[in-house]
C-alpha cells in the first residue's frame, strides 16, 4: 500500500486509521481548491467590486445603514439589509407605488441639486444629453475632503463597476476611494474645476433605482450631517450632538489630522 514501506500491514485498523486522515486531507484540500476556483470565477465575472461593497456594508455601524425610507420618515428606524441595492427591494417598490406627498425636509445645510442623483457613498451622477453620465463628489464630501493632495482618476477606457471604486482621493493622512454609482466605461476624465470628475458611458440602460434624488436626497444629507457630527465629536473624545448653529464651509479643517482617515472612511462608507 505504501511503496517502500515493507512494515506496513494492510489490515482494517490501519486502513481505517489512514483512511480517516486521507479523507480529512481531501476535504481540506477540496474546500480550499473550491474557494480558490470560486474566487477566480468571481474575478473573471467582474464581481469583485460588488463583493467588496457587500463586505464593507457588513462592517458599517448601524447608524450608517439607514434605509432611504427611514430618512424620509416613511419607515422610521428601518435599517437596510441589502447593501443599499434598492433594485430588488420589495419594500422600496411597494413604497414607491404607494407614494404619498411628504413634508419637505431640511437638507442639513448642504446643496442638493435637482439634476443630480446621489449615491450613499457621496458621489453624484448626472445624466447628460449624449447618453453618458458625469460623476462627481457631493457637497458634503467636497467640504470634508477640502483641497485634496491627490486625485487618482481611472484612465479613459477603464471600466467601472457599480459600488466599486470610481476614483481615489488623498487628503493629508487620509486615503479613500469613492464608490461608483454606475457600471460603465470611462470616456473622459475631468477635474474639480471642470465641475465633474468622470464621464462614463453606462453599461446598457441606466438603472438609477438605488440612487437618491430630491426630497430623499435632502433627507439623506440631513441624516448624514447628524452622523458626521457623531463621528467628528467621537474624534474629539466626547460623543455629543451639536444643538445649534450652521455647518462651516470648510469642514476639512475641523477634522484633527490623526482622525481624518477614519472620518473620511466612515462617511464615504469604506471600512
Amino acid at each position, binding site marked *: 500500500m505504501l511503496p*517502500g514501506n515493507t512494515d506496513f500491514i494492510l489490515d482494517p485498523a490501519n486502513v481505517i486509521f489512514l483512511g480517516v*486522515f486521507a479523507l480529512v486531507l481531501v476535504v481540506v484540500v477540496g474546500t480550499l481548491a473550491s*474557494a480558490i476556483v470560486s474566487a477566480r470565477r468571481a474575478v473573471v465575472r467582474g*464581481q469583485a467590486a460588488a463583493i467588496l461593497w457587500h463586505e464593507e456594508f457588513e462592517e458599517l455601524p448601524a447608524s450608517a445603514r439607514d434605509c432611504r425610507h427611514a430618512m424620509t420618515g416613511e419607515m422610521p428606524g428601518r435599517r437596510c439589509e441589502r447593501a443599499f441595492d434598492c433594485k430588488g427591494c420589495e419594500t422600496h417598490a411597494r413604497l414607491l407605488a404607494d407614494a404619498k406627498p411628504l413634508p419637505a425636509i431640511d437638507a442639513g445645510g448642504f446643496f442638493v441639486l435637482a439634476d443630480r442623483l446621489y449615491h450613499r457613498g457621496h458621489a453624484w451622477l448626472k445624466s447628460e444629453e449624449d447618453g453618458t453620465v458625469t460623476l462627481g463628489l457631493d457637497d458634503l464630501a467636497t467640504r470634508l475632503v477640502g483641497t485634496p493632495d491627490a486625485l487618482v482618476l481611472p484612465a479613459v477606457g477603464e471600466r467601472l463597476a457599480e459600488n466599486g471604486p470610481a476614483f481615489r482621493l488623498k487628503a493629508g493622512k487620509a486615503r479613500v476611494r469613492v464608490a461608483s454609482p454606475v457600471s460603465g466605461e470611462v470616456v473622459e476624465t475631468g477635474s474639480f474645476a471642470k465641475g465633474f470628475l468622470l464621464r462614463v458611458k453606462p453599461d446598457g440602460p441606466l438603472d438609477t433605482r438605488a440612487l437618491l434624488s430630491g426630497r430623499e436626497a435632502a433627507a439623506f444629507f440631513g441624516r448624514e450631517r447628524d452622523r458626521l457630527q457623531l463621528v467628528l465629536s467621537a474624534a474629539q473624545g466626547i460623543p455629543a450632538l451639536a444643538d445649534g448653529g450652521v455647518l462651516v464651509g470648510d469642514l476639512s479643517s475641523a477634522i484633527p489630522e490623526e482622525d481624518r482617515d477614519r472620518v473620511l472612511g466612515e462617511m464615504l462608507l469604506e471600512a
Partner: protein
Amino acid sequence: MDDTLIGRGLRRTSLPRFLLWLVPWAALLALGLYAVYLCFAIGLNQTNMDNRFAFGLWIYLDLTVIALGAGAFFTGFLLYILKKKELKAVINSAVVIGFICYSGAVGILMVDVGQPLRAWFTFWHPNVHSMLAEVTFCLTLYLSVLAIEYAPLVLKNRRLKEVPGLLVLEHQLHKVMVVFAGIGTLLSFFHQGSLGGLYGVLRGNPFAFREHIGIWPTTFFLFILSAAAVGPSFILLTTWLVGKVSRKRLVSPEVFQTLAKISGWLLLVYVVLKGIDSLVWINSTSPKTGVQVSSFYAHPPFGTWVLFAEVVLLGLVPAALLLSRRVRARTGLLVLAAAMACAGIVLNRYVMTIQTLALPSLPFDSFLSYSPSWQETAAFLAVLGYGVLLYSISFRWLNLFPEERELATKG
C-alpha cells in the same frame, strides 16, 4: 507606507516605538535559532535529555501551548458551529494565537526529533499503534487548517484588499470557514485526546497509567476537556493583556463574561471528572499494580501539594470564580481567575510530562532530576519570542479585534 497598512480607524504606536518593542523578542528568537542550529549541527547531546528522560522541556512546552492554543478550535466551534455570535469579537485573535501555539509546537518538535529532513518518515512509516502517530497526523493537518484560517485575516489587510483577486479569495474563504472550523474541531478533539492518552496507556508507569473507557484511557478525555476549558480563559487573558499593553479597549466586557462563563462551566466539569479519576487511581488503579499512590509523592518537591494545587487551587477555585456573577463583573478578578485556570493546565501538563518521567517506575529505578540545558531553554524562549513577534505584527497591521474601532469611536 506603515500608515497605509494599518486598518482604518485603528490607532497604533509610531513605527520606531513599535520596532523598539520588537527588538527584545527578536533577540530572544535569534538566540533560540542559534540553539536550534547547535542541536542540528552537533546533535541532541546539546540537550540534557537522555534515553531515560526522553521528554523534557520541549515536550512540556508542546503539551502546554497546544492546550492553551485550544482556544482557536473551541472559539471557532462555538462561533461557526454553535453560532455564538458574540465570540466574533475574539475569533481573529484566537486564530492567530492558535497558529502561533501550533506552529511553535511543530517547530520545537522538529528540533526534538533531531532529524527534521526525515520528518516525512512519520507519514510514510506510521506506527499506527502509537498515540504519537495520531498526534503527528492531527497536528500537521490542524496547523494547515490554522494557516488557512489565518489567510483571510492577512488578505483583509487594508492594502491587500485593494487587489480584487485577494479580496474575493478572502470572501470565498470566509464562506467556507464553517468547514474548516468543523475539521479543526475534529482534529483538535483527537490530538488533544491522544496527547493525554499517550500517558494514560503507559502500563509500566503506575503514576501515569489510568483506567480505560473503550480503547481510550481516561486521560484522553481529560486532556480534551481541560484544553477546551482553558482555551477561552487563555483568549480572555491574552485579550486583556494586549489591551493593557496597547492601552486600548479591544472587546466589550460582555465578551469577557461570555468567555469566562464558558470556561468556568467546562473547568468545573473537568475538575469533577479529574477528581473522580484521581480517586479511582488512588483507590484502585495504582494499588492494583502493587504501588501505593503515597509513594509517588514521597520525592520532594513533588509532594501531595502538587495534586491539591492542580485540582483545587488552580482548578476548583478558578472554576468557582469564573462562574460567579460578581467576579465576572470585575475585570481584575476575572483576569485573575482566567490566569489561575491557565496555570492549572500548565501545572497539569508539567506533572504529566516531567513528574511522570522523574518518578521511578521499576524497583531498581531511582528518582531522577532533570534540568534543561541552555540550548533547550533558549529554544523554548524562542517560541515565546516568535509568538510575541507574530502577534505584535498581526495586531498592528491586521484587524484582530473587529470591535476595536467602534469602541474607540465611543470613547
